[in-house]
């Protein structure tokens, strides 16, 4: 019986070492990670499959998980054979990883990939850089815009393509749309988007997130206060947004709210919803200037040893960067200006929705491209700024105090 056990153990050991993925000889397996979940995941999958067909000697393992998990796992697996060979990140994520020497600079590869500076909006291009080197190849950028429910707007006597050019225009429309169980717009708590709305409003009111040399928080200003107070007022003062709104997407689909402020990735899913007639309009201009939050996805090359995989990763990177029309169809706004002005892109059936996102290109604001953003950015559930904003929108704290506390917390993070 003891022998049986031993044999069994040896077999198990063999199985154990086998578990975790096989690799074929002669074929480079590239681990490609991205935080996409939803229609953009499927869109990227399609692009990857096209690449694999065109490149039979490269096999791509495409892994998706929510963004925070992707980064957690990147940290956990870095340096091992399960680490990613190619990743998508936000430009705001580059600093923390570049700082830790986890990314390869791509300056030397740009020429052979055909990536040119002039082809991209300036803020997007600048965001790819950190500490003097460039780490990312721009993939897309995504501002917020308002999705409007055509039927509900028409029923309230409004044009679903209307422009919210001022606070009064916006509030007026929202009140008309609010009636009993129905509301004008949803402000989600907890939902990271709420911090993104605030971000846009902050800049509209003339404020700024950090000071010029990024050493101190600057949002605990009148502008920051105004911005968060406005969001809270939508819920409690003007009563055009539901209290304790947990799920803005679902409520828009269910007809509980008439407007939804989301990113362009939401377009394909919405277009597929039976019975949903919608339109998109730019993010409302509430204060003195135009301004809206935007994020940007970028392709980065993690530091890695295996040359075969690295080459595979680079050719995948090049392929994706050069084929972003399909990516645009999946719901992101391609970063390449040539692409968004191309006939092919404009011929997409969903182009009429994307147009309103692209319009805002000149006045988008990205989150600070710095290492500490990992701690106070909208992606971290424990971010002091995020939670401060929730507090005000939940009616549990006052705008001025919340902003002050958040600023103090951000400063202590910056000063570490």
């Amino acid at each position, binding site marked *: 019986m*003891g022998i049986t056990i031993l044999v069994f153990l040896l077999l*198990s050991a063999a*199985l154990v070492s086998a578990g975790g993925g096989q690799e074929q000889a002669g074929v480079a397996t590239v681990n490609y990670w991205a935080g996409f979940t*939803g229609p953009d995941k499927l869109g990227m999958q399609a692009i990857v499959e096209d690449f694999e067909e065109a490149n039979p000697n490269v096999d791509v393992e495409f892994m998706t998980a929510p963004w925070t998990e992707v980064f957690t*796992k990147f940290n956990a*697996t870095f340096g091992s054979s399960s680490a990613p060979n190619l990743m998508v990140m936000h430009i705001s994520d580059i600093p923390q990883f570049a700082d830790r020497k986890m990314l390869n600079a791509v300056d030397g590869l740009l020429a052979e990939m055909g990536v040119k500076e002039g082809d991209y909006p300036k803020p997007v291009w600048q965001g790819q850089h950190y500490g003097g080197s460039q780490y990312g190849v721009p993939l897309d950028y995504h501002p917020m815009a308002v999705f409007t429910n055509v039927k509900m707007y028409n029923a309230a006597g409004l044009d679903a393509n209307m422009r919210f050019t001022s606070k009064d225009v916006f509030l007026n429309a929202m009140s008309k749309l609010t009636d009993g169980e129905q509301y004008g717009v949803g402000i989600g708590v907890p939902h*990271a988007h709420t911090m993104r709305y605030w971000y846009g409003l902050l800049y509209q009111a003339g404020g700024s997130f950090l000071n010029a040399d990024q050493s101190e928080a600057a949002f605990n200003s009148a502008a920051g206060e105004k911005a968060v107070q406005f969001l809270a007022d939508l819920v409690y003062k003007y009563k055009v947004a539901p209290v304790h709104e947990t799920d803005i997407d*679902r409520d828009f689909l269910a007809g509980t709210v008439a407007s939804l402020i989301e990113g362009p990735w939401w377009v394909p899913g919405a277009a597929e919803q039976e019975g949903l007639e919608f339109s998109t309009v730019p993010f409302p201009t509430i204060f003195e200037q135009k301004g809206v939050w935007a994020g940007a996805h970028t392709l980065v090359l993690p530091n890695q040893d295996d040359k075969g995989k690295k080459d595979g990763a680079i050719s995948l990177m090049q392929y994706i960067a050069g084929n972003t029309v399909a990516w645009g169809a999946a719901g992101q706004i391609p970063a390449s200006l040539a692409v968004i002005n191309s006939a092919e892109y404009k011929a997409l059936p969903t182009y009429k929705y994307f147009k309103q996102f692209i319009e805002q290109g000149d006045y988008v604001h990205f989150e600070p491209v710095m290492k500490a953003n990992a701690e106070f950015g909208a992606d971290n559930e424990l971010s002091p700024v995020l939670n401060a904003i929730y507090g005000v929108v939940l009616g549990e704290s006052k705008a001025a105090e919340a902003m002050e506390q958040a600023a103090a917390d951000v400063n202590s993070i910056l000063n570490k």
Partner: protein
Amino acid sequence: MNRSEVSFSSARTTKLLRSLLLYFLLAVITLVALTPTLWMLSTSFKKQHEIFQTEVKWIPREFTAENYIKSFELFPLWMWFRNSIFVAVLTLVLTLACDIMAAYAFSKLNFKGRNVLFALVVASIMLPREAAIVPMYRLIRNLGMMDSWAAIILPQAAEAIGVFLLAQFFRNVPNELSESAALDGCGHWRILWRIVTPLSVPILAVLIILTLVNSWNNFLWPLIVAASEASVTLPVGLASVMSGSSEAAEARQFGLLMATAFISCLPTIAVFLVLQKQFIQSVTMTGLKY
């Protein structure tokens, strides 16, 4: 006695009322305990528009299996299941092998420091695993074992509960049997596997269930070490879909989530319903040993 003086019918009424009350309590408790599971089932068979309505209907008007189909399409459920199964079985084999041998040493062999060592092992049962995950993580990483089944299996096989339970049981196996076997020329190895182990089936059943269930439901540690599809176990895979903070559209498609949830717990529930007695025994035997 007072009782004999009470009239017959009054005693019967009290007894009846008491029974009624108890049965009522039983019914209420059963219902309340079942409700979440039933609601999960009910939701999983509904279409989106029926889920998000303010009137609650237990039986869907439009019964649909689309959530289940979509669940298999969207998520690599087969991979997650496969990984969980392999990890559970391999953990079991390793745990049994190591624990049986160690328990035998602690109960049937005499050596210096035996009691101290045993006390250390037993004490470790109550120590929180979480207080060690950072060093464990660095170790697994330095050994190049990240994102492998081994990374999940080995730490769990280090748990001491099996050694404790088996040692206690072995102690009660009469020494006469092993002594007579020794006289016949059997070495300890033979005695362990051919005599003591076959006599320990009840406690082995307990340990098997305990190990399998703990492995299957293990969450925090696999969350840290498993990354790629090839090694992500079921709870970790589900968490990436069901996480509350996830901005994914799926995190709010409750029909889909409930279907996925049900698929995931169906195997464990099925096994539990069949092996109820053993499950409950494994709990009580662990508990009452203290």
